[in-house]
Every structure is written in C-alpha cells, then in structure tokens.
C-alpha cells in the first residue's frame, strides 16, 4: 500500500533558469524507506520542500494517504530557533494547536526526550549550547510530537561526524520499527542510502534515473562518488 504517490512533478526556478525537477514520479510504501540518491544540485531538497508544501510545483500531483508528514533538515543548528530553549522548541507544535495543559505538555515532552535518548537537563539549553547530533535529536523529537506517519529526512546526517551519523541512523531505524513510520531518506552518500533504504530513487539534474541508465549503474556500483559539497 503506498502512503505517498507522486506523479509527473516538475519545478523550474525561472529567475535562475534552472529546472530543479523534471517529470518526477515515484511512490513510497507504508512502513518502508525510500532512499533518494543524487549529487549536489540534483533537486533533492526542492523535492522535499514541495512534498512538505513549502514550495508549489509547476506541474504534477501528490497523493498522500497518511495523517501527518514532517521533515528533518540537513543543518541541525538551523533547524532550531536560536532564541528559544529546548523546552519552548518542543512545546511549540502543541501550542500552535492550542494545547496548553501544563501537566499534559510536561509529560509529553519527557516522553519525546526519552524517545530520542536525551536527558531532561537539556530542556533549559539553547540550540547553540548543543552539539550537532543533539540538535538533530531535538529536531527529531519535535517532528515526532506530531505522530507523523511519513518522515522526510533531507540529508539528516550529512552535517554530522561519522560516529554521530551512525547513532542518528540507528535512531531512525529504531523509531521506524516501533512506530510504523514511512521514511523518505535523502542523501548523497551511497553507504547511508544502502543502510537505510528498501527502495532507491536516483535523481540526476532533476530527472529520475532508471536502473539501466549507465549513470545509475556506475553510481550503485560505487564507481562514481557523488560530490560531497552539499
């Protein structure tokens, strides 16, 4: 059963004369992970933003049959408002929905912290006082507060060191198992994509690259190393 179906999505940035997405179609099955692999500038982030509704596509259709989708960004520090403490950051999604019961919020926030394996002492810290991995855990906890059934992860470990990368990847896998979460996992790193994905979609200059395409074969055989500067 697909939780998300995307058909013929296209997006052009006219002012820079860039075709970021060109007729992209794919689907994500419930409880599975779709890995999206592509080098820098291939349109991965544009796709993620369109899926979240932050950008409008020029053409194409998106069918989402789940309840809620959330996004995790590449830069953990930029994902959190620098002027807010962790506690306020985690409370915000509830306050937006006008849930303000103190007891309930307190309980919820402790639950979320333990899900992402952070100590309660972090509640009073500002993002600048956390490491990249810790910021990313806060961002994940905040996303989970909405009980999403689809999580779009736009290079969520690319800004982290190797050890932290492994920890965060395992956290995603654990969450996915326990919560029946579908994932779209975007990366330029073949190893990460292999580790995470049930299906793989390859993007090249905004187009989906089929399996039998020479670029795809080379890429999957790990002969090409996609550029790492994004």
């Amino acid at each position, binding site marked *: 059963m697909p939780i998300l179906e995307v058909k013929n999505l296209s997006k052009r940035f006219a002012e820079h004369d860039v075709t970021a997405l060109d007729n992209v179609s794919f689907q994500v099955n419930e409880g599975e992970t779709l890995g999206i692999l592509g080098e820098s500038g291939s349109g991965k982030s544009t796709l993620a*933003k369109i899926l*979240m*509704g*932050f950008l409008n596509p020029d053409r194409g259709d998106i069918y989402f049959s789940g309840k809620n989708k*959330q*996004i995790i*960004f590449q*830069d953990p520090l*930029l*994902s*959190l*408002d*620098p*002027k807010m403490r962790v506690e306020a950051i985690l409370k*915000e*999604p509830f306050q*937006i*929905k006008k849930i303000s019961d103190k007891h309930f919020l307190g309980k919820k926030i402790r639950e979320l912290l333990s899900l992402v394996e952070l100590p309660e002492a972090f509640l009073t810290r*500002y993002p*600048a006082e956390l490491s990249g991995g810790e910021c990313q855990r806060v*961002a994940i906890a*905040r*996303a989970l507060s*909405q009980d999403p059934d689809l999580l779009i992860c736009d290079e969520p470990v690319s800004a982290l060191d190797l050890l932290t990368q492994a920890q965060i990847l395992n956290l995603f896998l654990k969450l996915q198992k326990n919560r029946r979460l579908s994932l779209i996992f975007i990366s330029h790193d073949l190893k990460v994509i292999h580790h995470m994905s049930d299906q793989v979609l390859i993007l090249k200059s905004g187009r989906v690259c089929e399996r039998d395409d020479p670029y795809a074969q080379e890429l999957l055989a790990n002969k090409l190393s996609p550029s790492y500067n994004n």
Partner: protein
Amino acid sequence: MGGSTHPIESPMKQLAKAWILLMLCAAILAPFFLAHKASEMNFLNALTAPSLKHWMGTDSLGRDLLSRVLWGASVSLGVGFLAVACSVILGVMIGSIAGYGGKWWDRLLMGFSDVMLCFPVFFLILAVIAMLGPGVWKVALIIGATSWMSTARLIRAEIFSLKEREFVLAARGFGAGRFWILQRHLIPNALSPVLVNAVLSFSAAVLMESGLSFLGIGVQPPTPSWGNILMDGKATLGVAWWLLFFPGMMIFLTVLSINTLGENESHRN
C-alpha cells in the same frame, strides 16, 4: 549574541555610560525634587552668573538654571524615549508586514516608506504642529511617526533572510500561521540590529526635540526642555553666556554619549 568574551571597554565608552546613567537619574528624580525650585522666580536675582548658590547661574526670571536643566533632562529624554518607542513599534509593524505579508504589501509599504524618506521630514513636522499646535506628547509622537523608515527597512531585510530558514519552515510544517511565525520567530530574531539603530535614533530624537523647542514650536514654557532653555537664552546672548552654554553642553554631551554607545554596538554586529 552568544558571545561570552567582552572586550575591555574603552574609557570613552565608560564615560559615555556614566553620563547617560547620570542623565537618566536626573530625568527620573528631577520632577520629584526640583519642580518647585525650577519654577520659583526671583526677579531680584535675575541673570546672575554661576556661583556657589546657583551653580549654573539664573535666567532672566531669576530661576535656578541647574534645576531647570535637570528637570529639562526628564522632558528632553522622555520625549526622545517616547519618540523612539513609537518609531520602533511602527517600524517593526510596517517592516514585518512588508517582509512577510507577500509581494503586494511589500510594494505598497516600501513605496510609502520611500515617499516618507524623500519628504523633508522637518517641514512635515512643522506642518503638523501648525495644524495640531505644539505640546510635549505631540512632539514625541510626530517625531516617532516620521522616523520609522530605517527600522522598517532593517526588519524587512532581516525577515527576507530569515523566512526560508529551516526553523521557520519547520514551524510552517506544524501548521503555524503567518502571525505566529512573525511574532514567535521572525521578529525576535530580526530585532538586534533594530535595537542598535534605536539607540542612534534616540539621539536624533533628542536633537530634533531641541531643535523644535528652540524654534518655539516644541515643548512650551514654563515646562523646561533643553531646547526651550536654549531659546530663552538667545534673548540675552551678549549678557548671560551660561544660559546657552549649559543647556547646549547637556545636548552635546548626551547626544555624543548615546552615539558612542551605539557606534560600539554597531561595530560589534
């Protein structure tokens, strides 16, 4: 922001700080202690030079100039403060709507702001006072209402650079509306350059008030402000230098101190 290393303050900046503190104390305390002394007339004592009894001398009505200058601090600084508060509030509101209200509002409000910038503000103020009449509150509000443009531009520019940031997008993903995002994320993060700018506009507002009062269309006697004490002194220019020197010094030192503090801040950012 977040920086925990404070460079050692220059002596200039420390002096500036001390002067501002002193003036603030005067501004707050003077109305309680000096109101009577500052308006007490004594014609036998008119236009006496600075002495031990009257440190800054007396004016043409025999009033103690020191008391009037200190009371004037509360009027002049109060007008400056109110004017800046008014201009910051207007600027933040207009800049926010321009920056996050969509193209249409942006064009309309920035066009309006350009018109206001081209307008000779001083004559606008004169025109408004001619219609409404002078007065302490009116002067403050008019200065504020004609000086919000730089704040609006700053806020708008900050919002433009903030609004595609990940933490703002994340809030949108949770269903936050425009107003929520503005007041919870965009304005708090856009505010620091505005506050530095506000310090500088404070000194401009103090100068503007002095100028208007000096022309006799600002704060009206018998309420003393630095501007109208100066104006009083103009009549006796050749006889009583102290009537120009002391209020002039007050304006000069205060504006200089505020600018010194504001300058340092804007270098740091």
